[in-house]
């Protein structure tokens, strides 16, 4: 079996193994280290020795053995653990009822809920999710976020300490908490995806793997909770956005806006899957922000060109989105859609209102959009000024280069 196949198998098994070990022995923080060591052992041995007949059982056994060693060598820690165990409520000592055995999928979901616990900072939620559920090594997580490995090691151990200190039991959140906690999980996956997708420069390769990892985890959540509309919506949104990746960057690494992308390069398989997911999810229950964003992405992905896009429908979807999650970036996208549907002046009017929102007034994106709409309206001089204003506010060199090229285009040709 090739190295990459072993890697894929290990990452798929990681949350199941950790879930099984924690369920059986407790000690989430130490168990997580033990499982990580078992995964590393497998990654070095399996490519040579072959994959064992029951890889999951192999990993659970090795991790459990390692956990025993770690716990023995940390007597002081064990005493503290015992103190915590004594504080547990009697009902928490009970094993799960025999008529409903815990499944591997329950374990993966519980782990996700733990890693995205609201007592952790977003940076810690992301790091812990990628390591404990995604099965990435600390070095891989560190590389993806461009921080030194020592920083990431501390971030992960602090996160585990917080979980330990807060005494969160390894159990499904209560029914009343579940919706809020699931939103936190989806948000973490969304952040991981954006971190990978938004990066265009530097060591881009490692970063794009983050987008793939986010899709893999979102797919897992969707499979665990097939009836949750927002879990489906998030997976659809990721697939429909990621489908445009091959057309998004030019040969010299420059960004290409959607209107100018070669749509034949878009990934038809991802688009079909994303459209099917959102089509199934939309009629079910209340419509959340991920479903709306996925629906917008689907309209873009299915349009043969920017002009032939169903802009009035996109305007309507953005208006729904603004009702449930008002933020200036959504309002900016809404202004673009309005301009496409009703002409540039209607969009520019909305931008003038938006300019008063100080969260976005100094953002290069507001000025880029204004430049684009002014150009559509035929005001080349003002458009050029706005492109330059946007370039001054952008810190990313690739983006600055794009904006300067746009400004230069309005100076030279006629």
């Amino acid at each position, binding site marked *: 079996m090739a190295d990459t196949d072993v890697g894929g198998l290990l990452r798929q098994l990681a949350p199941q193994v950790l879930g099984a070990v924690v369920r059986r022995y407790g000690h989430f923080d130490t168990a997580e280290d033990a499982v990580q060591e078992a995964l590393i052992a497998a990654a070095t041995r399996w490519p040579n020795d072959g994959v064992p007949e029951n890889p999951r059982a192999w990993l659970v056994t090795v991790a459990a053995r390692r956990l025993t060693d770690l716990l023995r060598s940390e007597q002081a820690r064990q005493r503290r653990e015992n103190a915590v165990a004594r504080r547990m409520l009697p009902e928490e000592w009970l094993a799960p009822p025999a008529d409903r055995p815990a499944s591997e999928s329950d374990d993966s979901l519980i782990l996700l809920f733990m890693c995205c616990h609201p007592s952790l900072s977003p940076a810690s939620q992301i790091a812990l999710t990628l390591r404990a559920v995604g099965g990435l090594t600390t070095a891989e997580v560190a590389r993806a976020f461009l921080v030194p490995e020592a920083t990431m090691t501390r971030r992960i151990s602090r996160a585990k300490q917080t979980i330990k200190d807060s005494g969160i039991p390894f159990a499904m959140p209560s029914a009343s908490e579940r919706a809020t906690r699931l939103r936190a999980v989806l948000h973490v996956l969304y952040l991981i995806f954006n971190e990978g997708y938004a990066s265009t420069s530097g*060591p881009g390769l490692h970063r794009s793997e983050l987008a793939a990892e986010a899709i893999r985890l979102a797919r897992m959540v969707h499979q665990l909770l097939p009836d949750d509309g927002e879990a489906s919506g998030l997976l659809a949104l990721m697939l429909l956005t990621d489908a445009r990746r091959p057309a998004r960057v030019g040969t*010299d690494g*420059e960004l290409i806006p959607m209107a100018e992308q070669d749509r034949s390069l878009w990934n038809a398989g991802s688009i079909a899957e994303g459209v099917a997911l959102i089509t199934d999810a939309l009629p079910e229950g209340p419509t959340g922000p991920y479903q709306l964003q996925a629906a917008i992405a689907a309209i873009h992905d299915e349009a043969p060109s920017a002009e032939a896009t169903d802009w009035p429908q996109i305007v309507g979807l953005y208006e729904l989105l603004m009702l449930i999650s008002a933020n200036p970036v959504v309002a900016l996208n809404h202004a673009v859609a309005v301009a496409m549907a009703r002409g540039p002046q209607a969009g520019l009017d909305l931008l003038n209102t938006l300019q008063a929102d100080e969260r976005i007034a100094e953002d290069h994106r507001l000025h880029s959009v204004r430049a684009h709409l002014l150009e559509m309206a035929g005001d080349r001089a003002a458009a050029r000024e706005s492109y330059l204003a946007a370039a001054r506010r952008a810190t990313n060199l690739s983006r600055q*280069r794009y904006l*300067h090229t746009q400004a*230069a285009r309005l*100076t030279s040709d006629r």
Partner: protein
Amino acid sequence: MKYMILTYASQQDYDALSGKPGGNVAWSAEDFAAMGAFMESFNKQLAESGELVETRGLAAPVHARRLQWQNGVPVVTDGPYAETQEVLAGYWIVDCESFDRATAIAVRLSSCPGPAAASSPVADVRPIIESQTELEL
């Protein structure tokens, strides 16, 4: 032993790099891509030899903030540098066997492609002090 390699650029250099009109010799898309490719392979070689600790590029000086204490009160100024003043643009921290080896690494930076007349760049190589005991030696 760890060393820090520092490179410098002025706001004008950054403007040229970002394709801003009216500045120094503007970089074409090809120039820019060639520089990116050089840096990627330069960093990859250092990472593979195990000598790279970390490297960063810094955004243009116009995005800098300077803190100055006036009578004990911190005053923040935005982008305080003159157009032509060269300021820190990026750095590498390398962990290697000798000062000469660190210098040799910095010398390799001179093969970074770019428009011929771009500038006459400067780099510094400085040993890193790891602890207070080293300072007292």
